């Protein structure tokens, strides 16, 4: 397989790079400043692309690689892959479901507690010496608060299971109501936001879900409401969110993703009621290795004509 050209869209994992280097003719896209020239020169060698949440295979890239057979993603989200184009051209697509579900759900709950109980602000309070002058203020209890989840897939369900251990009533919004669940369904996101205190974004990013959190939803969530985003930055109308937080029209936010990572709106840096994370949903040593192994496994399976491990249907 060493002759097979594989294009890695951006840096994502040195372990994955090393392992792919051993097995394929690996091209690191970010090392070629003249991308068009690079693609022209290597268009007939590259048969696979490895992408992630940051960069994948858009229509333009797919068109420049006539020998492309498979796009293997180091993520579960597929918003950076032109799935329609892949289907047209018979290009296989794989991702990394299940292995990261627990980590992302754990992080969502961690974000909720850190935001409601102001744990980041507490830590700053102690480190600055402010505790010597007085107690920290009262914060907001998590146990028993209503949690609304947008997208009740693997990750959404895992978040619900954990929140239930905190006695939180769970409600959700989904494209269609799910029959086999005990949680309360709301047919619109605004309805969901009006009826919960903690709103969690856990759905895939598509054309339909872009800016699913807009001004109206934010207003419905309100000054006692908290938004948690472990989906994708573009799920949220970010300027609207920032303005609502700065104005106090939204109670707080725990954000793992942003519209233009790694850029984070600086207005948020001075707020005590937000927690800002650098896209670490699946960010554990164990899970990232499992994700990398899945990418390698999928690529090997494809080039050895075996069934793919985690194909995207």
């Amino acid at each position, binding site marked *: 397989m060493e002759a097979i050209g594989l294009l890695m869209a951006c840096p994502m994992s040195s372990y994955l790079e090393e392992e792919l280097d051993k097995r394929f003719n690996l091209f690191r896209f970010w090392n070629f400043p003249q991308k068009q020239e690079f693609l022209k020169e290597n268009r007939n060698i590259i048969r696979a692309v490895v992408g992630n949440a940051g960069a994948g295979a858009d229509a333009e890239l797919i068109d420049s690689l006539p020998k492309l057979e498979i796009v293997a993603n180091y993520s579960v989200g597929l918003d950076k892959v032109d799935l329609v184009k892949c289907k047209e051209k018979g290009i296989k697509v794989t991702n990394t479901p299940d292995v990261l579900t627990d980590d992302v759900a754990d992080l969502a709950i961690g974000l909720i507690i850190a935001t409601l109980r102001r744990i980041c602000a507490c830590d700053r309070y102690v480190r600055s010496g402010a505790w010597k002058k007085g107690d920290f203020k*009262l914060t907001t209890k998590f146990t028993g608060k209503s949690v609304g989840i947008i997208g009740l897939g693997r990750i959404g369900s895992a978040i619900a299971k954990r929140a239930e251990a905190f006695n939180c009533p769970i409600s959700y919004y989904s494209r269609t109501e799910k029959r086999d669940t005990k949680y309360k369904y709301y047919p619109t996101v605004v309805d969901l936001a009006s009826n919960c205190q903690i709103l969690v974004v856990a759905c895939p990013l598509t054309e339909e879900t872009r800016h699913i959190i807009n001004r109206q939803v934010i207003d419905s969530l309100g000054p006692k409401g908290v938004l948690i985003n472990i989906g994708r930055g573009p799920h949220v109308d970010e300027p609207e969110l920032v303005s609502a937080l700065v104005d106090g029209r939204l109670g707080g936010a725990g954000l793992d993703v942003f519209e233009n990572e790694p850029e984070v709106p600086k207005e948020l840096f001075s707020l005590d009621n937000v927690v800002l994370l650098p896209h670490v949903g699946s960010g554990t040593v164990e899970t990232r290795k499992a994700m990398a192994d899945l990418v390698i496994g999928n690529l090997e399976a494809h080039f050895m004509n075996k069934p793919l491990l985690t194909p995207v249907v």
Partner: protein
Amino acid sequence: MLASASSLLPALSLGKYMAQAQQEKLPQVLVIRPPAGFKTFEERFSKKFQFVKAWESSLSIDLFLSNHALHVTALLCSAGTRVTSDLLRKVPSIRLIVTTSAGLNHIDLTECRCRGISVADAGDVFSEDVADTAVGLFIDVLRKIISSDRYVRRGLWTVNGEYSLGSKLQGKRVGIVGYGSIGSEVAKRLEAFSCIILYNSRKKKPYVPYPFFPTVSELATNSDALIICCALNDQTHHMVNDEVMSALGREGVIVNVARGGIIDEKEMVRFLREGELKGAGLDVFENEPSVPKELFQLDNVVLSPHAAAFSEESFLGLCELMAANLEAFFSGKPLLTPVMDFI
């Protein structure tokens, strides 16, 4: 008559005078130092109790007590007021102590028992909040939430790229030290994260489904993390010592939402500085509000100002509970959250 009364009290309106007289008929509650949020409590219950406030007087505490507290039967305090045998001797009329805390290490319970003084505490009012914070701190340390937030706010995500990876919760063996109302809430929550729960308590609890270890050392040997949820007393002081921390190991995490004195703090600081522990989430310290400065340089430690219990919701619940205990006492009824009840 009225005219001369008015001339005798030129500074007070008649209304205020009447209100004060009303107040003076109310049962008295001695408060030496105000618990956090006392002002709210006082406003809310000003028609039910008359508070005898030692800190507002310019007199020394001894003089104040001998002048103003000789007939007061109830004392309201927080964990910040040490109710020693010495103090109790100075207020022999006290028959009830109501503390705003779940912890009791600030009260000489032996002396109370000798004197037949009833004690009421905060019961379970804080248990959920403390358990939530314990779980929050545990996730924070393993997933580096606080240090990642700090990284982003310093602008380092754009400059240096990805922050370092954390560690999975699933499958971690969590040793709960003290399986009381807080410990059991922590266990219930962490089970949902697929953690394996183990515990140590003074005695094995027959109805608890998790493996029991008779000593904290043995618990630590078999755990990836220790979450301290027990009371501070003579037996538990410095119970988490260097032997326990060595048994826990370099990949071990400590979360303390109980009392600072349960851990040998100096040793813990040394273990953390030398990389002999993976990290710690600490809400309590041996000499609050002093925190060992060496911890400020560590990214793998989350520090919290004894705030685990203090949500607005719990505070409201606490106010109601304190008032209910006082009312029960003054009307000869059983206390709601007795530690000991001699009434």
